[in-house]
């Protein structure tokens, strides 16, 4: 039974290997910045994630970014974190998002506001955070609004808001044994699709997926494996050391370091990761991220043999 009827949902239901890509909204109000990315990425994915003030850096809101993408022909997956808004604002924004045509929503806890102060940015580390509800409670909220037409309070809304509900899985963060149980919790709470934290070791990931499969989770929700396009060996080293849940095999870093053209090698590595992902039973798609270089994605997706996207 169709939950929301989004392109992503239909693609997965039809049994196609899905492709989603991440689009970071601009650090400014110019809609052209979103439209340009939409033009670059049109037709290469089944869903386009719009991040929600990722790393606590102020960007155009994900609702606005999502709406602009949609108008440009790219069906958005609106990301929603729990850091900045309480349940009143979250539910209100969900009503608004649905009214504006959004049908996919990815629920996350959100990076702590301390993350916003890094590199050249001062960020807002002194801001008050919210975290009224957590990501799993947010998933439940969306489920109740969709399936029962009620808010968290139990008060009814005038009509249900069918969303295709997404959640994140970070299989390799400690405590590893609990991560699969937490995935189960998210799916029980109502998650329909899962996008994982970036994976660079598909063998390791395959083991985690096998556990999920044993628990019956791979049929209850569609798992899309996250893949970040690596730009350099330095980037891989950085992620391996600093990004929780991201493990980069030593061999991959060496390979990058030895490459004549690290960018090009990065594209090749990405294609190989996608191909490896396709061979893992229970993995229903890939979620590609090219941070601040979305323009490289169409060629990568083409090289991986995933174009054109199936019509559903």
């Amino acid at each position, binding site marked *: 039974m169709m939950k929301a009827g989004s392109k992503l949902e239909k693609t997965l239901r039809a049994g196609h290997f899905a492709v989603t890509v991440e689009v970071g909204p601009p650090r400014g109000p110019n809609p052209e910045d979103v439209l340009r990315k939409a033009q670059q990425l049109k037709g290469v994915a089944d869903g386009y994630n719009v991040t929600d003030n990722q790393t606590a850096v102020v960007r155009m809101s994900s609702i606005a970014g999502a709406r602009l993408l949609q108008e440009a022909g790219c069906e958005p997956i609106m990301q929603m974190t*729990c*850091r900045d808004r309480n*349940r009143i604002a979250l539910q209100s924004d969900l009503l608004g998002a649905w009214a504006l045509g959004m049908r996919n929503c990815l629920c996350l*806890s*959100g*990076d*702590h506001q*301390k*993350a916003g102060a890094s590199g050249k940015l001062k960020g807002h580390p002194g801001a008050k*955070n919210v*975290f*009224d*509800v*957590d*990501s*799993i*409670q947010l998933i*439940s*909220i969306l489920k109740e609004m969709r399936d029962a037409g009620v808010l*968290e309070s139990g008060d009814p809304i005038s009509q249900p808001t069918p969303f295709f509900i997404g959640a*994140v*899985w*970070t299989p390799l*963060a*400690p*405590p590893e*044994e*609990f991560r699969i*149980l*937490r995935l*189960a*919790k998210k799916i*029980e*709470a109502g998650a329909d699709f899962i996008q994982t*934290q970036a994976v660079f070791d598909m063998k390791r990931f395959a083991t985690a997926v096998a556990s999920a499969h044993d628990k019956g989770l791979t049929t209850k929700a569609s798992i899309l494996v996250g893949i970040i396009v690596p730009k350099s060996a330095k980037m891989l080293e950085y992620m391996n050391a600093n990004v*929780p*849940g991201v493990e980069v095999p030593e061999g991959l870093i060496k390979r990058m370091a030895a490459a004549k053209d690290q960018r090009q090698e990065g594209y090749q590595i990405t294609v190989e990761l996608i191909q490896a992902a396709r061979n893992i039973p229970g993995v229903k798609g890939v979620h590609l991220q090219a941070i601040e270089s979305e323009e490289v994605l169409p060629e990568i997706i083409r090289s991986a043999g995933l174009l054109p996207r199936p019509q559903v």
Partner: protein
Amino acid sequence: MIIAEWKPLPELVEILKGHTNVLVAGCATCVAECAAGGEREVETLAPLLKMALKNEGCTINVLTRTVERQCEWEFVEELAEMTPKVDAIVSLACGIGIQAVAERFPDLAVYPGVNTTALAIRQEPGLWIARCAACGDCVLGETFGFCPVARCAKSLSNGPCGGTRKEGKCEIDENIDCVWFQIYERAKARGKVEQLLKVRKPRNWSNSGHGGPKRVVREDLRP
């Protein structure tokens, strides 16, 4: 205990520049426990303020007095014999004590000498860690004795988030344990991991600060 820490010295110097006679008032309870406002700290800050202000061209006279607790009126009253001699009080008590002093001596400038920061335990000598958030809806029985409100940077009810570092540390500070990692380990040790599989519903934050300034009345204890 309630913990506090000295305000930065430049800030205190700015505050006191216009004053001549200052009372540094300490409290022998919580702030003494966290080495911020007890007698020892009062007697350290007093000469320090004199010297810091002297270097800014100001000569101030500093009196000192530490009372048992600044959150009890009978002890705050002990400061009354010194207040005629000063034109300002710098209180090293927590915000509760500072306000009690300000309420008792409304004609005097009362300044905080500390920033009150948390409800903490002295884990080891010289190390204090926040343990309680005074949230008004205690779930310690469900989390194996670890507070997910005070000790999780995101106050998750269904943690951990994806940010747990290697060795089970928190995403935002490698010195802080990921409390959900600790909760899981404790659950595992007790053979009760299934208790963590239940989806915990959104919390009720209204029994504490979020519900408005807290006011508690006990009729049986009223005069």
